[in-house]
């Protein structure tokens, strides 16, 4: 299977604050990864890890400060918006918050039709046929009714379905799902995830599934990448990560979820303190102030991302030989 999206040592900085007090925050620090056609790559991390930013960089919604974003072999890092626009129909985003994702002044029908109208220059009536089909696909029935409604008249779950309909109407090949169910009631999460999996299956889509919920990823992803404070610290196939996590942070993540570590018979690892300040991360290994296995080297030098057993990567001095 070929690579559909590649991130090559990508760096993304933001400036926050006002006037005299500006701070530069590095949200993504030299992250490289490859996503294969048709695979689900789960990106897990806590808030402040940079996972959402990474997702948006991969769609070129932000221009990275350093590094390359390569889509289907094309370097899109610095591509001008005009050239990029046709490619955008193949690379889409499903956001966390369905409530803000559709312009409140549009009807659902208008919103779902819009990508068709702008990309394929077809007129509204022709588009409407495809819009109807799309709404049916996501389960917003009766279609005639939903087409006329406005975002505020829909529930969270229904809105997310509408957003998915709008996104999928372009038949993208690469989808970034940024915490697509975190803002929804637990009871509807399953149906939304199943909807996404349906589309993925039917159209052989690659999905970058971003979430803080590693248990969810263990059920849907093929490979997992773990992020901590703007860096990718572990990567591997989902079964091996979940059965045998290597990085102390990954171990701590699994230890922290109720019932999981007992279930899986994993070693319990606890971290002190809290995630550091992204504007001023710790020297050396970013986890070192909290890590129970800290070595002296960890506070001085940043470990490289090394390959351990086929296709498993860890960024930790404990595994550097």
């Amino acid at each position, binding site marked *: 299977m070929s690579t559909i999206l590649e991130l090559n040592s990508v760096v993304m900085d933001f400036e926050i604050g006002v006037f005299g007090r500006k701070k530069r925050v590095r949200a993504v620090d030299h992250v490289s990864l490859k996503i294969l056609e048709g695979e689900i790559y789960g990106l897990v991390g806590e808030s402040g890890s940079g996972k959402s930013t990474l997702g948006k960089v991969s769609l070129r919604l932000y221009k990275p400060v350093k590094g390359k974003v390569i889509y289907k072999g094309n370097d899109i890092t610095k591509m001008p918006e005009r050239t990029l626009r046709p490619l955008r129909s193949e690379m889409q985003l499903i956001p966390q918050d369905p409530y803000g994702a559709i312009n409140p002044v549009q009807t659902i029908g208008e919103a779902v039709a819009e990508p068709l109208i702008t990309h394929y220059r077809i007129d509204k009536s022709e588009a409407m046929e495809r819009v109807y089909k799309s709404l049916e696909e996501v389960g917003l029935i009766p279609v005639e009714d939903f087409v006329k409604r406005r975002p505020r008249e829909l529930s969270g779950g229904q809105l997310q379905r509408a957003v998915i309909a709008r996104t999928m109407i372009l038949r993208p090949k690469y989808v970034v799902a940024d915490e697509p169910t975190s803002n929804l009631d637990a009871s509807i999460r399953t149906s939304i995830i*199943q909807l996404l999996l349906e589309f993925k299956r039917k159209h052989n889509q690659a999905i970058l599934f971003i979430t*803080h919920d590693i248990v969810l990823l263990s059920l849907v992803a093929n490979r997992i990448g773990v992020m901590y404070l703007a860096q990718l610290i572990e990567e591997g196939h989902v079964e091996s990560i979940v059965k045998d996590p290597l990085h102390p942070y990954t171990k701590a993540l699994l230890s922290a979820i109720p019932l999981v570590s007992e279930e899986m018979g994993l070693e319990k690892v606890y971290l002190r303190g809290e995630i550091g300040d992204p504007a001023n991360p710790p020297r050396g290994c970013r986890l070192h102030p909290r890590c129970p296995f800290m070595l002296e080297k960890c506070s001085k030098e940043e470990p490289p991302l090394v390959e351990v057993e086929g296709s498993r990567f860890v960024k930790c001095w404990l595994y550097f030989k």
Partner: protein
Amino acid sequence: MKEVLEVSDLWIKYYTLSGVVHAVSGASFQLGKGEMVAVVGESGSGKSTLGYALLNMVPKPGKIVRGQVLLDGVDILKLGPEELRRIRGSKVSMIFQDPFTTLDPLRKLGTQFEEFLIEHGVERAKARAMVKEFLVAVGLPERAMHSYPHQLSGGQKQRVSIAMAVALNPVVMVADEPTTALDVIVQRQIMDLIDDIRKRVGTSVVLITHDLALALERADTIMVMYGGYVMERADKKRLLANMIHPYTKALFESLPRMSQKRMPKFLPGYPPDLRNPPSGCIFHPRCAFAQEKCRSVAPVLNEIARNHFVACHLAGGEQ
């Protein structure tokens, strides 16, 4: 062992413009020293309302219409406002999902904490010392007293809430979804802190949560609520070994489990409208095993094994 908290036959209703909401219907449980009971339910189950009742703080238009809440032998539902003010924070305290509810964003933490202690009769010098002592005890640096709430992370704010909630050594602390808004690793730290307090000081905890997994991991006793009624109540080990009520089982099935490679199954349907609840068993519209009797007669909580109570006709829950 003498129970520090005894709740008997508690009924709470909200008298709203659109009708009477039957928020809590006949809840009962006991809590011993240093124990934790988890009140588990979805939104609308009545668990939060129950939590407020433990401080006799049910917000208007709510009213406790029946029942007793014995805190160390004293029925707090019969106390006057001045007595209530004295015991809140000192004999029974509460922490919330959003620590902002307890913390004033415009004042330094140290100052707020001190004022809280002084209001409960601690003299200023001692209060200042206690503030330092408790902030450190919950894992914060001393200098946190000079910070404002917005300068702290979610986890740190919650630690401050906990410090204030246990500083006066209450017998019971009510924790309403204390970790829901926090990152996973910090959630564990906060729950560990609460466990630590239980062990060292003997504070009993009422944990209100929607997360059955969290309850199964931490609590001694688990009480599952639905639509204001108690469906099942048992000590943790017994419940893990043998879940009886269909709702408890459904709740358990809805937990995502790594060991079983499948998406969790959710109960179809919606929670009941508590202004117009269904007849008979409140759960019957969504119950896969509902029978004729379930639609007409409400089951009572029945002890089907030692320390295991179930309200279900199929488990012999008949009057």
